[in-house]
Structure formats: C-alpha cells, structure tokens
C-alpha cells in the first residue's frame, strides 16, 4: 500500500482498538456489548494487516495465538455460567454477584464479565477467519 494509507492506518488503528475496548467494557451501560466490540477489535487488526501486509510466517504464528484465545474465552464463558450452579441458587447462568448501583461502571454483577469474554471470543474468531483466508491465499501461490 502507499505511504498515505500506511500513515493513516498507524494513526487510526490504535484509536479503533481503544474504541472497541470502550464498547465492550461499557456494554452494560451504553449501546453495544461483547459482539459489537469484538468485531471492532478484530477490525483494527484487519486494518493493520491489510495496510502493511505482514509476512507469512508471522501470520501463521498469529493464527495459532488467536485460535488459542478464542477457545479459552468460550471456555471461560462456560465456566462463568457453570459457577451459577455451584454458588447462589443453583441455576445455570445465575447472576449471583452483587448488582451495585445502576449506571456505575462496576455494576450489574456478572454481565460485564460475560461481555468481556464474549468480546475476546468474537474478536479472536473473526481475526482467525481472516488470517486463515490470507494464509490460504499465500499457500496457494507456492
């Protein structure tokens, strides 16, 4: 890509990443949440890869890492849901943590935790699909 695209990406990618984190963490207060924020996070990585086109070996390493994060995050979501069975009133997906005051950042019990881990899972999934497509194209060339 040209210098203009590279420079703009350098300036914007970090802000896109921060905005994704904001959307995920404030998911229980403002519109958005785990799914939307996760896709924005993946978008910042995709922007960087499209602009700079990092090399093949590094991409394969990143794919392994993103698959690991994706599976770990969905496992943690499942464990958090199971924790409702062990603690509190023994219901799957029980919101047993204290709720706090309405509208504060740390409130709503388990919901922010679900948002964060679903966000990690969605971001890693979309990034993995994109990386798999890029690596497939590189492999077809050889």
């Amino acid at each position: 890509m040209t210098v203009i695209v590279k420079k703009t990406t350098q300036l914007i990618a970090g802000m896109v990443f921060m905005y994704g984190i904001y959307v995920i963490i404030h998911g229980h207060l403002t519109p958005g949440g785990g799914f939307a924020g996760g896709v924005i996070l993946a978008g910042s990585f995709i922007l960087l890869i499209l602009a700079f086109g990092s090399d093949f070996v590094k991409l394969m390493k990143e794919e392994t890492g993103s698959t690991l994060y994706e599976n770990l995050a969905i496992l943690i979501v499942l464990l958090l849901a199971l924790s409702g069975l062990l603690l509190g009133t023994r219901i799957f997906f029980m919101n047993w943590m204290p709720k706090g005051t309405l509208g504060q950042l740390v409130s709503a019990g388990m919901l922010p935790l679900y948002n964060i881990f679903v966000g990690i899972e969605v971001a890693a999934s979309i990034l993995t699909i994109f990386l798999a497509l890029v690596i497939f194209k590189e492999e077809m060339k050889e």
Partner: protein
Amino acid sequence: MEIAIAIIAGLMIIGALYAIHAKDLLSAVIACGIVGYGLVICFLLLKAPDLAIVQIVVETITLIIMVAVVLDSSREEKFSKPDPQGYVSMILSALIIGVLLYFFIISVSSLDEFGKSTLRMSGPYIEGATEKTGSANLVTGVVFDFRGYDTLGEATVLVTAVLGVLTILRIKGKK
C-alpha cells in the same frame, strides 16, 4: 418515519436488483453494501442503536473481505447458456415461487400492525429487566441474563464456524 423507511427499503431493493444484473463483480459487491448500510439507517430510525452498531461493523468487514476475494479472482461474471434441463428447473422454480408468494400474501394479512406485537413476553422483559439484572442497557440485560442460553449458543456457533473454516482451508498445510 414510515415514509423514510419506505424510501430506504426501496433503495435497498434497487441496490439488490443492480447487484444481480451488474456486469462487473466489484460493483455488484458495492451494490450489496447499499443493502447493508440501508439496513443500518433503518435500525437507527427504529431506535435500535445496538443492532445498528453490530450491523455497520459486520457489513464493513464483510465488504472488505468480499472486495479482497473479487480482486483476487476474476472481475467478470461467466455466463453459460441453459440446456433443456436448465429450462425445466427454471419453470419449476418459478412455479414454487408463485405458490410461496400466494401463501405469503395470505399470512401477511393476518400479521400484527407495524410496531404493535401481541407477544406477551416483551412486556415483562421491558418492565422488570433493570431491577432484576442491574444493567442500564436493557439489551445486554436480556442477552446475557434472561436469554443466556441463546447467547451461549451464538458464541458456540462462532467457534464451530472457525473450526470449519480452519478444517477446509488448511488441507494443503496439513499434508
């Protein structure tokens, strides 16, 4: 507001029709984008910012991936003349579309009025959600608390999709 939604829906239909008939595949992909972004404006007009955020981000990323795919393969659509079997299936599909349209018109007349639903579940969701979940955003409260199973299913579908993509695309690497 309903007039604005009708205008945007009309634009979306024009975009979809152009996407089918465009000679250049790149302009067909961009015309598909009209449908997605028109839907974003419809969601905003219907006061659903959660859906609008998801739709705008997903639409942008799918558009990027589709443009990349079109630029790497051919930009021309390849046509082939239909043989006798093709004509038979064409007539058959036209017949099936006619039958489906007939039942669609019957069922549309018995639907609820636009914006008024007779489902009983939406009332308790809207009234009790803030106290029960402690979440200021009603949508998150419903998605992660009342309908937690649903969300878990969606997340699992995403994991399964990634597993499928990796299985299909990495045959050459595993050899």
